[in-house]
């Protein structure tokens, strides 16, 4: 199999090489031939004989100062060279200035000084090769492999150091200088950026055949959010975030270029300084079950990805497609987000930076609550708390179909006695009751950074403290991160780097999510308009502390203050992330890197529930200890060579060994002996244990070969073989090994042919990749009996049939793109088109349960993604004091299921109580939402019966839950010491099911349920005549709650589904920086004060809080996930305002 693929691959490769060569030939022939008259001299020759030969043989006129030392011997690099090269050699070696005035050469003696030193790259402090050193527009030389240079200049002249991708550095040297340190800063908007690609290999962007996007660290901290990945929104075309909305430490799922894996494992690979964290500390550690009325609600405890300190991030490279990430192997098939953290800089003394950030979070949107009618079921024309003189009790409902607020008085709840009042009190609404429960969220982030370095050593240390209190009372977290980065050049040949960060994150309470008793939003939907939230603050009945809660109305929900102060979800997490790496240069061209990387997380969590909570009458206490670790050892050999003047080539080869272990101990006391005592020893029954452990290994070898021609044609070929232990079984390892290749090409058209002058840069690129993946779920290959948690010594059969013959899945992708820049790079446009297919997926196929099993593991399915990504940037105004620049992104992705097992539909996500499903169906998108909807007449009108809209018996297609396109636009302005920026983004073309809207409408809580109360309503639609024809509906619906229930309630998936289109003012920021003059007076390096806002404004028709939602729940495959499609009791959306102060010493 592999051999066959290898042959195929070679065939492809040779075809590609032929094409490339043909292209080069044609292009070379067309290139302009410049004046390249070659002059011939001996290698070592005196100035006098040069002058002589120039005059006699080449007919130049030469004049020179009388005191010129004509006996000086010049060493020429070649016996044949052009005039300008000859002049440069004479100038450099004889300390003279030579001018060519139309064939007249004038040689003048100069006062020369010699300067030597090393050029470093500002971002990583590594020596920089190939930097052009020039003075007075004359090129003096180029830095070598070690970044070293040595030039002679006339005393006091400016020397410029330039390299594409770096800011120009100009320094004047008045006297002889040794060991000068030149630090070149990276330019973000340069024609040719240096980017970090797979395996941490730095490449010039122009040589890449695939799309990459770089995001700078500042862009992440400009408008800080609780989860820094929020800041990627609108900055990377083709990047989608699915947010868990799970509270202050809510997770995000990062999806690049659409979802392809039917199992839901579509997250991009997250790599921090070469350490892949996804399946190590990056594992989301949520708990609980489904989001809809399950035994226990999910809680999002976050992951190591949330815990990365954004202040420590230097930059992020997003490799969107498998082509880009092919070298990362099976885990790169969904693209990769490569995070590089900051290192120490070379500078005099120690740099100290203090950064302080304060953010306030407020709820930004609310459902459209009605405040005209109070508590009651349909038809109640009075209110009575308990049976009173007015009539039977009407208190035990959460619905608001009751009497109108008309100035009357009723017997109502008395919060002092926790029972019915003895006198009638005014019947009034408390419009803010649902809102007043929430608080302003506050986040304080303070960090100190120390860094410094010499040419041999550089070190950076940072410490960050975050303190958060969230919008729900008694929720929030604290986080401390310390990070250390050290680079040491042991010898000229050996360099050692180490990076380590340690994070401790602790929370005394994180909120339960979803629609359930432990979740606040469940209460929030159930609270009635005539209730004051202050009535609930005494959440125990008098004299019944810890035993009986006080809740005046329907016994479905729990008291929200009881939830906030007694139903606690605690977590203490320790993450360690680090790597040590050594690079040894055998020669200038040949080096080896060895590295060991570790990501580890230890999370101790607990959940406690008091007595009398609806789901745990006798209380509950559970603890989990979760230990996750991944160790990866790898090496990389690199050999790079400038083969000839025009040809360069490099070969890298490496291998890695990965070991992943996961240990989880879950102990549960689901009823307690004594109320209010939360220890495992206080169990009332048996302590139930759910242990789980897993371990797997993946070994790999890989290689990359690159060829470059004349700095404008480039080709990369990669290959990788994985041996994935997940695919092994106890008897066989025959399926564990799989190979996959990629190839990519890049051509800088603007260097090859002469383009109109307004085009400053044009690049075309193309790539093809095939990536295999064996998944990361071990133990799917052998049949095993599951240990029962509750029955001593008990076992039961699995419901999943194992597959001893499980194979790897395969993603193939192709991409073409263009990067064109106009008007001196004032305007840039990058377009990428891609197509990818993920085949032979590892699926859990539903079986007829009569087989004795629910599912079988099989290889099947093919999902295709096609799309376009556009990134544009422009600088309309570029001046000394005023600057205005614009960034724009657009991405559209079309997802299509090509095949499935026997082409049977596969349910990916199920809605609340089985209402509605997201189903993968051949020919449809993976986001297709199905459910019951309106019965419609042939002309599309809603069919009514007895005045009520009718629902279909079977499910129908409702809409697509994956957006058609996303777009963003950012503006940055700079005026003198002020800078201002804002970012707007939008999404179009998707729908979502809103449980919040459905439940509120069922209970008559929103304004859309007001029309027709107590007079009835005639719905807009048709009614069927006895002969099967239709007439306009003419029947008055009297039962108004049934009417609105049928329209907007949970069962009507169509009626409860709304557009998730939105436009958001995502970020805005205003900064003031002190002027350099001011700074030097104060003795400071940098002072910046900024105010910012995040998610300031949302324009949408979504009836709940935030159209951008994800739900922490269990998918149809039984895996916990952040699902799209169904909003199941989302938390309020918030807007953030913040102040940020940075001081550098």
């Amino acid at each position, binding site marked *: 199999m592999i051999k066959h693929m290898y042959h195929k691959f070679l065939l492809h490769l040779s075809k590609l090489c032929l094409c490339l060569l043909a292209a080069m030939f044609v292009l070379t022939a067309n290139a302009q031939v410049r004046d390249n008259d070659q002059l011939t001299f001996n290698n070592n020759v005196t100035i006098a004989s040069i002058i002589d030969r120039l005059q006699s043989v080449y007919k130049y006129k030469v004049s020179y100062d009388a005191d010129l030392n004509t006996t000086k011997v010049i060493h020429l690099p070649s016996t044949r060279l052009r005039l300008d090269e000859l002049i440069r050699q004479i100038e450099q070696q004889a300390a003279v200035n030579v001018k060519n005035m139309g064939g007249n050469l004038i040689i003048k003696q100069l006062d020369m000084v010699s300067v030597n030193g090393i050029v470093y790259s500002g971002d990583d402090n590594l020596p920089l090769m190939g930097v052009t050193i020039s003075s007075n527009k004359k090129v003096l030389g180029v830095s070598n492999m070690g970044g070293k240079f040595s030039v002679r200049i006339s005393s006091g002249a400016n020397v410029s150091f330039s390299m594409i991708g770096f800011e120009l550095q100009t320094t004047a040297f008045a006297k002889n200088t040794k060991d000068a340190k030149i630090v070149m800063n990276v330019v973000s908007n340069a024609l040719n950026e240096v980017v970090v690609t797979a395996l941490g290999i730095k490449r010039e962007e122009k040589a890449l055949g695939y799309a990459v996007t770089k995001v700078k660290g500042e862009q992440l901290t400009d408008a800080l959010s609780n989860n820094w990945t929020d800041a990627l929104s609108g900055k990377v075309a083709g990047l989608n975030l699915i947010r868990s909305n799970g509270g202050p430490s809510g997770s995000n799922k990062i999806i690049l270029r659409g979802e392809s894996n039917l199992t839901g494992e579509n997250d991009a690979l997250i790599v921090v300084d070469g350490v892949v964290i996804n399946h190590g500390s990056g594992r989301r550690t949520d708990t609980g079950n489904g989001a809809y009325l399950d*035994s226990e609600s999910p809680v999002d405890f976050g992951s190591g990805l949330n815990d990365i300190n954004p202040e420590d991030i230097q930059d992020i490279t997003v490799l969107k497609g498998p082509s880009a990430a092919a070298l990362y192997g099976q885990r790169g098939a969904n693209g990769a987000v490569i995070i590089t953290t900051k290192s120490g800089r070379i500078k005099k003394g120690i740099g100290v930076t203090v950064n302080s950030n304060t953010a306030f979070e407020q709820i930004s949107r609310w459902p459209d609550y009605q405040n005209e009618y109070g508590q009651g079921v349909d038809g109640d024309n009075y209110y009575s708390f308990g049976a009173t003189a007015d009539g*039977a009790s009407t208190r035990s409902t959460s619905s608001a179909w009751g009497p109108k607020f008309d100035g009357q008085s009723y017997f109502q709840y008395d919060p002092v006695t926790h029972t019915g009042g003895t006198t009638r009190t005014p019947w009034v609404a408390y419009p803010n009751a649902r809102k007043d429960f929430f608080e302003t969220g506050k986040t304080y982030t303070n960090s100190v950074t120390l860094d410094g370095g010499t040419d041999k050593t550089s070190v950076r240390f940072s410490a960050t403290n975050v303190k958060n209190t969230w919008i729900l009372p008694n929720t929030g977290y604290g986080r401390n991160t310390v990070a250390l980065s050290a680079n040491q050049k042991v010898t000229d040949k050996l360099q050692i780097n180490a990076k380590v960060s340690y994070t401790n994150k602790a929370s005394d309470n994180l909120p339960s999510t979803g629609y359930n*008793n432990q979740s606040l939003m469940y209460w929030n939907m159930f609270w009635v308009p005539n209730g004051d939230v202050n009535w609930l603050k005494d959440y125990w009945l008098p004299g019944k502390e810890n035993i009986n809660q006080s809740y005046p109305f*329907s*016994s479905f929900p729990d008291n929200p203050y009881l939830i906030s102060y007694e139903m606690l979800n605690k977590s203490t997490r320790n993450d360690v992330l680090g790597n040590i790496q050594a690079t040894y240069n*055998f020669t200038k*061209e*040949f080096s*080896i890197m060895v590295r060991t990387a570790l990501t580890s997380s230890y999370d101790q969590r607990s959940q406690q529930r008091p007595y009398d909570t*609806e789901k745990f*009458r006798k209380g509950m206490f559970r603890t989990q200890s979760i230990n996750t670790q991944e160790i990866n050892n790898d090496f990389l050999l690199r*050999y790079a060579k400038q083969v000839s003047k025009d040809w360069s080539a490099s070969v890298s*080869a490496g*291998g890695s060994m990965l070991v992943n272990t996961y240990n989880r101990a879950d102990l549960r006391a689901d009823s307690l002996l004594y109320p209010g005592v939360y220890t495992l020893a206080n169990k009332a*029954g*048996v302590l139930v244990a759910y*242990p*789980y452990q897993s371990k*797997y*290994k993946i*070994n790999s070898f890989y290689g990359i070969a690159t060829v470059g021609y004349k700095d404008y044609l480039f080709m990369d070929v990669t290959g990788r073989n994985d*041996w994935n*232990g997940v695919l*092994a*079984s*106890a008897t*066989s*390892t025959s399926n564990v*090994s799989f190979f996959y290749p990629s190839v990519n090409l890049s051509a800088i058209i603007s260097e090859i042919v002469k383009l109109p002058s307004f085009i400053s840069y044009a690049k075309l690129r193309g790539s093809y990749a095939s990536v295999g993946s064996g998944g990361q779920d*071990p*133990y799917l290959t052998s049949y*095993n*009996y*599951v*240990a*029962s948690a*509750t*029955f001593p010594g*008990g*076992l*039961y*059969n699995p*419901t999943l049939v194992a597959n001893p013959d499980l194979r790897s899945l395969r993603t193939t992708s192709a991409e073409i793109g263009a990067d064109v820049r106009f008007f001196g790079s004032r305007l840039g446009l990058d377009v990428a088109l891609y197509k990818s297919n993920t085949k032979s997926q590892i699926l859990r*196929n*539903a*079986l*007829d*349960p*009569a*087989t*004795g*099993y*629910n599912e*079988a593991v099989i290889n099947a399915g093919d999902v295709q993604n096609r799309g376009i990504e556009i990134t544009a940037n422009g600088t309309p105004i570029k001046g000394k004091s005023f600057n205005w620049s614009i960034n724009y992104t657009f991405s559209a992705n079309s997802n299509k299921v090509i095949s499935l097992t026997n082409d049977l539909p596969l349910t990916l996500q199920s809605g609340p109580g089985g209402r509605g499903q997201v189903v993968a169906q051949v020919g449809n998108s993976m986001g297709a939402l199905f459910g019951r909807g309106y019965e419609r007449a042939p002309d599309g009108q809603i069919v009514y019966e007895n005045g009520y809209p009718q629902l279909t018996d079977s499910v129908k297609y409702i809409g697509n839950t994956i957006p058609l396109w996303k777009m963003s636009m950012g503006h940055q302005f700079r005026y003198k010491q002020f800078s201002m920026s804002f970012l707007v983004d939008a999404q179009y073309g998707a729908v979502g099911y809103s449980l919040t809207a459905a439940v509120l409408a069922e209970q008559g809580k929103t304004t859309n349920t007001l029309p027709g109360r107590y007079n009835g309503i005639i719905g807009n639609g048709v009614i069927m005549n006895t002969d099967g024809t239709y007439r306009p509906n003419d029947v008055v619906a009297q*039962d108004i709650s*049934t009417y609105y*229930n*049928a329209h907007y*309630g949970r*069962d009507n998936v169509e009626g409860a589904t709304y557009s998730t289109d939105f436009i958001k003012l995502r970020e805005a920021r205003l900064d003031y920086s002190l002027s350099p003059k001011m700074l030097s007076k104060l003795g400071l390096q940098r002072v910046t004060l900024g105010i910012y806002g995040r998610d300031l404004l949302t324009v949408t028709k979504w009836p709940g809080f935030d159209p951008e939602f994800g739900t922490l729940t269990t998918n149809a495959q039984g895996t916990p996930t952040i699902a799209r499609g169904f909003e199941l009791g989302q938390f309020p959306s918030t807007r953030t305002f913040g102040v940020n102060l940075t001081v550098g010493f």
Partner: protein
Amino acid sequence: MRTKIRIIYLVTLILALCTTSCTKDFKELSVNPNAVDHPLPQALLAQAIADIVGTNMNRSQRLQNELMQVTVNMGDGDGKIFRYDVRKAESDYLYRNWYLELTNLNDVYKGGIETASPTYQAIALICRSWVFSLLTDTYGDVPFTKANQGKDGLFTPKFDKQQDIYAGIFAQLEEANTLLKTGANVASSSDPVFAGNAAKWRKFGNSLYLRLLLRVSAKTELNTPAKITEMIDTSPSNYPVMASNDDSAILRWTGVSPYVSPFATWRPADWYTPKLASFFVDNLNEWSDPRIGRWATLSEGEYAGIPSGYQPGQAPPSKSTLLTSLQTEALLGNIMNYSELQFILAEAAAKGWTTKPGKTYYEAGATNAITLWNLTVPAGYLGFQQVKWDDTYTLDQKMELIHKQKYYALFFTDLEQWFEYRRTGHPVLPTGPGFFNGGKMPARLSYPTYVQTSNTASYNAAVAAQGADDINTKVWWQK
């Protein structure tokens, strides 16, 4: 040159390492540390039985109570089961859970052979018969001979005719009876029903045999009345049956994990959302039956229900509900009790399949149903007009008498009340103006929809043989 040699060395070394170590440990690591690959019967049995009983109780509450007018889950929306509006989605839960547990029961049988324990074999056969009878009585034709072989790659089992399934069940129950003649008791911890007592399992097996023989007694193909006669009259010593309430097959929920009633974790508000129906409450009131005090709440000082099947939009005010104490009630784990057997025998007597007097069986059934709940039979109970047995009654009158009592003996017992109603039409239930489905009691549940997609050919064949896949197609023994 030296560089080149170095590269060659390195590459050679790497390739050498690769061939030896790239798959090292893989086989060992592929063994799941959280599970075992071979079970003993005692490890599987207890949870299987507990899960089946839990499954049955769940749907007894949701389906049977509504269809059989125990409760009324009020509302005018669609999918209201008390109105006979049974949606296809209701079919999934039982079909799935019953078949999944059959996989465990099959392993108990296999383990019984491997460990040379005829008792475990017999227990597995009895439980399998029980579960397959539930399946076929609920759905009609279902996979039987080819069922539960997914482990061996059989993913599309064919459906068997109900008649053949019953024949198969009877053969298994015969086998179990024979095995248990010599079977020793097994580990008490592995058996939450009879604590490993082989003799009690034998009695239960034969009682179950009688239940199922009676169920298909109207069909001539299997000639079950003759078998009933044989078991009761001809060779009773060969077929011992339950002799008292102590022999009843009940998983008594102790409240101590793992034997916690599945209702114990329900929210009380969910438990008492369905209101008691007047049919259920009125009979008990008329009989002055003390069981009502264990089952129903008082509503304004009295036990009262509401009529099922009321007109939509004309909901009556709700009255009594089920007591929340039932959420932890041990006796709701009923599989088959002694009273039910007595009513089975009473019906057999009334139909002349035994020479023994029907009255004795009937009265034993009625009184034991009350004493099972640890209650005292009210003085003169058997003489009350509505309870009293009269040998002169017509068969129909006797059937109504037996089945009214049996209805209460089957309280929360899987779907037995419904099965018996479908078989006999007794007890006669009041009809309401708000019934859907033409006022017709559903005759079965339709097959779950995914069977249609995941086992298409077999499903189509079954529908072709049995009739349209809807709730009004009669199963074989109803025809």
